[in-house]
């Protein structure tokens, strides 16, 4: 099989078996690096860093980057489309099944159970973001907790939160742009 088709096939498999979001694709990308030598693990680390620091879902960004590095723009487009095809198919099928059982009391009860758990997962993800954003990575917890706090970030956080709570019509993008400018100006 030629490498282009093989790359598409590998991304299709990743899309089919990586359960749990974008970061779940990383082990699959590592395997591609080791099995085929398409890119080095070092290069992959750079690609993950770029994928996390640019807009868009991290998993999509990584597929696009790997595809681009291998085959230019056609590679970027095909790797990404291969990655998302399985999940589109799976979700369209699940939607159809859910439609059929929409009025089922059992399905409703199960979803009522899901929701508080989802809030819990999101809280866990958010607290991890807080940790990276507000704490310096050096120092041991809890002995040096106060020294670990990134005060610039805390001040910015308090200011932006006050602004966002006060003006609830404000677009999230405004907060993102203000924060990016503050970060660049004051060397966060």
């Amino acid at each position, binding site marked *: 099989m030629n490498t282009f088709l093989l790359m598409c096939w590998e991304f299709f498999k990743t*899309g089919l078996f*990586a*359960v*749990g*979001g*974008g970061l779940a694709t990383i082990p699959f990308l590592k395997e591609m690096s080791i099995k085929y030598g398409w890119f080095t693990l070092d290069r992959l680390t*750079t690609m993950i*860093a*770029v994928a996390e*620091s640019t*807009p*868009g*879902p991290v998993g*999509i*960004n990584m597929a*696009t980057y790997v595809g*681009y590095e291998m085959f230019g723009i056609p590679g*970027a487009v095909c790797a*990404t489309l291969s*990655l*998302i095809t*399985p999940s*589109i198919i799976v*979700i*369209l099928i699940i*939607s159809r099944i859910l439609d059929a059982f929409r009025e089922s009391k059992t399905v*409703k*009860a*199960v*979803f*009522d*159970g*899901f*929701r*508080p*758990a*989802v*809030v*819990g*997962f*999101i*809280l866990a*993800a958010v607290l991890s*973001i*807080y940790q990276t954003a*507000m704490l310096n990575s050096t120092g041991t917890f809890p002995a040096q907790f106060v020294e670990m706090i990134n005060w610039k*970030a805390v001040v910015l*956080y308090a200011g932006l939160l006050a602004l*966002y709570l006060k003006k609830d019509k404000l677009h*999230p993008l405004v*907060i*993102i742009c*203000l*924060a*990016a*400018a503050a*970060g660049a100006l*004051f*060397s*966060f």
Partner: protein
Amino acid sequence: MKVLWDLYSAWFRMGLFTFGGGYAMLPMIQKEVINKYHWATEDEVMDYYAIGQCTPGIIAVNTATFIGRKVKGDIGGIVATLGVISPSLVIITLIAGLITNFSDLDIVRHALKGIQVAVCVLMFVSVRSLFRKGVKNKLDFAVFVIAWVLAQFTGISTVFLVIAAGIAGYVRMRIQEGRA
């Protein structure tokens, strides 16, 4: 056609303004999908996230497919999904082609540190709103705390946690039926 264009452009914006993974997209989803276009309710978005945890693929993509399909059938699902991936294709291709040392640039690193703080602010407000809608009674609160602790401090796959939460919801219904 108008609806398809709305789906494409709204999901394009959501892809463009999201930094991080699927959860970080939540503030944008609340703004565009729930408040602006009324394509789905907060409850439905949470349901899609729960299913997205247990199904293959990227959560942002799964959510786009779900909501697109709900609005305009299978074609709507595909169009919304293409919308959410389009910004990545453009931006990554530009960066990979032009600025190879992108994530090493000082200004980029500093701006990103700032953006992380913004994500914290936006997510605080989003989670507060989800909590008010999704956690309504004692059992909900217990499931919320257990799910949070296990997701935060253990490596247990969220797939199992979602299934367990679903079972808890089912058992509660049976118990309530038993009492009735």
